[in-house]
């Protein structure tokens, strides 16, 4: 009995150690490039070529420079505005569709879900040409709406699938119970349904925002000036302050500025995001 216990305990310790080491490895794996780019952004320009991982001395010159230039603040504004608009529109439309799919029985239900899935697998490159042409004709080229519309389209499937999965779990009869207890339809909706639906809506919003914030192809193809160029496109075409200087430092500083808020958001809402991403897979 004692030997088995001892052996079992040793195996348990080894296992725990194994999982702990694994967890540590995962954390390093995930944050490694972020740390590297942060390190680059803090290196003074003269030391950018020293090939070391950690900076020898720390300098904020790159950060100062990108905010003095007109490109980066404009790109930030564009990104925030466009991503926010896309999120609001996409989630609003998806909410109605998801509500209909979950609560009403109509013949198009499966078609819509299936169609949404096929759009999610769509190669965006296939629509870039016509959109480029069309937007130029209609005057949407290099505008905010010119990007909001494609972002809506390509995030609607994700939003619809996420919201459908969440809405399926809502006990809708609670609304009726509240009304039986004397609440008006509006009160019932606001105090019973909204709190239950809020997490799903919030999760869908985060996922949509990340997509719109992240996109590079549409942002590059459908914009050309600071009027609508978002951060990914702007960063890719950053020029150094002089023709002979590598823009590495500026690019790194810009990257840190757009990544750090995201890391904070992820740390705060990781459970939501994960459940949203897996909701479609498990419950769908």
């Amino acid at each position, binding site marked *: 009995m004692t030997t088995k216990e001892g052996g079992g305990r040793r195996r348990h310790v080894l296992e725990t150690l194994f999982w702990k080491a694994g967890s540590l490895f995962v954390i390093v794996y*995930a944050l490694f490039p*972020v740390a590297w780019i942060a390190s680059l952004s803090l290196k003074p320009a003269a030391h950018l070529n020293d090939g070391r991982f950690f900076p020898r001395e720390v300098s904020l010159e790159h950060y100062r420079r990108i905010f003095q230039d007109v490109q980066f603040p404009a790109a930030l504004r564009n990104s925030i505005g466009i991503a926010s608009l896309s999120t609001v529109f996409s989630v609003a439309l998806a909410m109605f569709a998801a509500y209909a799919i979950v609560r009403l029985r*109509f013949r198009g239900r499966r078609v819509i879900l299936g169609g949404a899935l096929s759009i999610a697998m769509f190669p965006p490159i296939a629509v870039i040409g016509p959109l480029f042409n069309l937007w130029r004709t209609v005057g949407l080229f290099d505008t905010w709406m010119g990007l909001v519309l494609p972002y809506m*389209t390509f995030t609607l499937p994700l939003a619809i699938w996420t919201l459908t999965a969440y809405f399926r779990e809502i006990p809708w009869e609670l609304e009726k119970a509240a009304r039986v207890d004397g609440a008006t339809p509006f009160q019932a909706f606001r105090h019973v349904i909204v709190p239950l639906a809020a997490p799903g809506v919030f999760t869908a919003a985060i996922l949509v925002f990340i997509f719109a914030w992240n996109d590079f192809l549409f942002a590059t193809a459908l914009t050309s000036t600071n009027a609508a160029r978002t951060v990914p496109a702007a960063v890719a075409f950053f020029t150094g302050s002089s023709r002979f200087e590598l823009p590495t430092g500026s690019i790194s500083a810009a990257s840190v500025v757009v990544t750090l808020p995201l890391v904070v958001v992820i740390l705060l809402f990781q459970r939501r995001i994960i459940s949203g991403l897996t909701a479609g897979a498990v419950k769908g």
Partner: protein
Amino acid sequence: MKRSSQSRPRRLGRSAEERLGWLLSAPAVLAMLVVTAYPVMNAVWLSLFRYDLRFPDRRAFVGLRNYASVLTSGIWWESVLNTLIITVGSVSVELVLGMGLALLMHRAVFARRTVRASVLVPYGIITVVAALAWKFAFDPVTGFVNPLLRVDQAWLSQRWSAFAVIILTEIWKTTPFMALLLLAGLTLVPRDLLDAARVDGASTPQRFLRITLPLMKPAVLVALLFRTLDAFRIFDTVFIQTRGAQGTETVSVVGYNALITRLNLGLGSAVSVLIFLCVLGIAVLYVMGFGARLAREGEEA
């Protein structure tokens, strides 16, 4: 699984319900169609013309000549090969790594929240930023990889080392997503089944191979399908790291160069349509190959 409390608004008659359903879904459906159905049809239409935006007056109907040009072009077939190399290279590694990561996230109790949050960082980070980070890491001048490995390799200037960097970046960025999809499948494996097997004396690898993996097959196939389609469409990383030079051009980069860089809407549209057909083909192959088996196994279960 379906709650009996799917209480539909009882007051509505059948056809009124249908109408309301369509009414509520219509805006979303419209938004999805306008930016996909119309441009795709437009792309097919444009692909039948010789249409260069730099010489708009020389536009002319040429039928399938653009397709012939593309399909006999070495550049196109090389890009297909490149895309397949990157796809197979990244997805295969991601599957293995992702499975390991999923198991870790499933079982680990140490710093669980930090691990899960960390895993999301590669998913949420802008692809351009990730591509740049790895590009700078492998850069012979500013990077730390060359000093670390004590080599003097110009990684992104040669074809195969460039592939290595691109594939590494892709693996880094999307393994977490694969892991999340697999994790969802892992949670469906009944704990008691595994416990019973352990009591019966099955070792850990046996339990994994004989119980966990087979029960996870649907999740694995879904994850594989999504990731393969995603990988085939790769654009950001390749564009940022090599612009498609050194023989690393993928199909999307070819399309982009034709359409946006050279403004050749005719040829570019033909490339776009071909890419669309490729993606469709992959999806159909998957569904035909695995879908039938999934349906059969679903019935057997």
